[in-house]
């Protein structure tokens, strides 16, 4: 087995025992990237030299007895929407082609302070807006379960890299589901923390009040470890990894089944996957109760108006100066926002407050967590997208960007050989509880241990050490 398949905690144990070096681990990941990424296109930049320097520095610190925590010496990837000092960061756009930030984003600084090895920058939909696009400097990332399928987005490279085994964890962003939906399509774990849990300085804004920094990881435990490193202190989310092994017996989980089960876009098999997941959580001792929530369409409408208004404001200068350099889909999405008035946006913000209070009243004053669908179908084929106009894929993610509740995407089964997943939502700053539920589910099932087939022209066996 390649060393790159070791979980973060397994690798960490070996690094601390002296039976593995970070340089060896980093080289194993780099070998896989060289072999498999031509098919997955997860990386827009591989930082081989600096990664090996950082790995060597981690090894020197281990030898000196310096322990910076669970990500020390571990290769990680960062979405290309997040600034990294001295490394080209183009936000997935020709508009910023060749842009080299002078400083690190706050989250990148936390990773460096924790001794992580930054292996490279990962693909994103242009400015995290919409995709897949075929008129950008780099073609879109592919889904490791079937490279003719999309990853979802906008943290497309994060999901492709983790699902393809190139990384165990990565940092993405989520404004309407950009961590969770690609995690769902690619069969990995996506964690959108509470609004305000992880600093956003140095992240190119899509929507200043809906943007979140999150993780895409191979397992819930690795998502929790990553969160513990990047989170600002406070709440139980700062110690998510230490609470994973508490059982979930007696936890009260609301099940928002009517939010997705009758949607015309839902796959019937997805409803069965969700019902089976609810049953599994019940078998683990959780108390599941169906609840009725405010109309999903109202959440989506409020978020959509806010997102488009804030995105247009964030892009006013580059649109004025470089509009011809935007890809078609991003340009169309941004410009559709010019129809909004200040009164429209004020109305959307007012509804946002109402819905946030309603979710708190109906769910989180009575329940420990909420279970609902993530994407309503498996990953569509690239052939469903012509790149000339946006195609919307149904999901249930954006309400929690609106309300700021933490939400965890966890693999829950397969439909026709493609991953299907669920979403567990928690109280504000309740990341530890949703990670505990997701971890218990993961331990009781084998969905997260399933691996995609090797792409044509590459194989894991070739990459073995």
């Amino acid at each position, binding site marked *: 087995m390649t060393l790159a398949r070791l979980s973060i905690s397994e690798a960490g144990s070996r690094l601390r025992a002296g039976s593995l070096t970070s340089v060896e681990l980093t080289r194993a990941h780099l070998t896989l990237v060289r072999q498999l990424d031509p098919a997955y296109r997860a990386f827009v930049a591989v930082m081989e030299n600096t990664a090996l320097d950082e790995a060597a520095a981690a090894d020197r610190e281990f030898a000196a007895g310096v322990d910076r925590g669970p990500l020390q010496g571990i290769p990680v990837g960062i979405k290309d929407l997040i600034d990294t000092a001295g490394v080209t960061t183009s936000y997935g756009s020709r508009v910023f082609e060749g842009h080299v930030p002078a400083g690190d984003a706050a989250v990148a600084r936390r990773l460096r302070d924790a001794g992580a090895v930054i292996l490279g920058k990962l693909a994103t939909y242009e400015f995290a807006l919409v995709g897949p696009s075929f008129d950008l400097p780099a073609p879109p990332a592919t889904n490791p379960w079937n490279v003719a399928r999309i990853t979802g987005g906008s943290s497309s490279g994060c999901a492709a890299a983790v699902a393809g085994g190139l990384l165990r964890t990565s940092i993405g962003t989520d404004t309407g589901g950009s961590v969770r939906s690609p995690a769902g399509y690619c069969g990995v774990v996506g964690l959108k923390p509470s609004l305000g849990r992880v600093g956003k300085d140095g992240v190119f804004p899509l929507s200043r009040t809906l943007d979140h920094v999150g993780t895409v990881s191979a397992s819930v435990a690795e998502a929790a470890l990553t969160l513990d490193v990047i989170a600002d202190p406070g709440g139980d989310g700062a110690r998510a990894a230490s609470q994973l092994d508490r059982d979930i017996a007696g936890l009260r989980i609301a099940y928002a089944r009517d939010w997705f089960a009758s949607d015309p876009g839902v796959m019937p098999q997805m409803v069965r996957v969700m019902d089976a997941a609810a049953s599994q959580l019940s078998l683990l001792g959780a108390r599941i109760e169906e609840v009725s929530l405010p109309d999903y*369409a109202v959440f989506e*409408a409020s978020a959509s*108006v806010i997102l488009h208004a804030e995105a247009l404001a964030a892009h006013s200068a580059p649109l004025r100066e470089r509009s011809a350099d935007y890809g078609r889909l991003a340009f169309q999405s941004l410009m*559709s926002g010019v129809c909004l008035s200040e009164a429209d946006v004020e109305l959307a913000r007012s509804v946002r407050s109402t819905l946030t209070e309603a979710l708190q009243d109906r769910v989180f004053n009575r329940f420990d967590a909420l279970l609902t669908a993530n994407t309503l179908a498996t990953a569509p084929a690239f052939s469903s997208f012509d790149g000339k106009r946006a195609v919307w894929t149904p999901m249930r993610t954006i309400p929690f960007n609106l309300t700021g509740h933490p939400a965890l995407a966890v693999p829950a089964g397969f439909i026709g050989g493609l991953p299907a997943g669920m979403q567990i939502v928690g109280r504000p700053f309740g990341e530890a509880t949703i990670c505990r539920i997701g971890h218990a589910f993961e331990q009781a099932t084998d969905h997260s241990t399933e691996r995609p087939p090797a792409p044509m022209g590459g194989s894991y066996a070739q990459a073995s050490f």
Partner: protein
Amino acid sequence: MKKDEAGIDESALLDRAAALGVNIPPDQRIPVLEGARRLSDACRLLRAFKDAEKKPSSSPT
């Protein structure tokens, strides 16, 4: 003034874009209008939601 079926005014949309210093190329106008129409529908839904919220709820007699 051209109006599409959802009542979005294409000329006004182009004027607003021009006020931002942005020209919407002819081959992108229909997709932009479609997006604007979705946002207009969203605003209509939000207004209906607020109106329903303001109405006093009926109570059983």
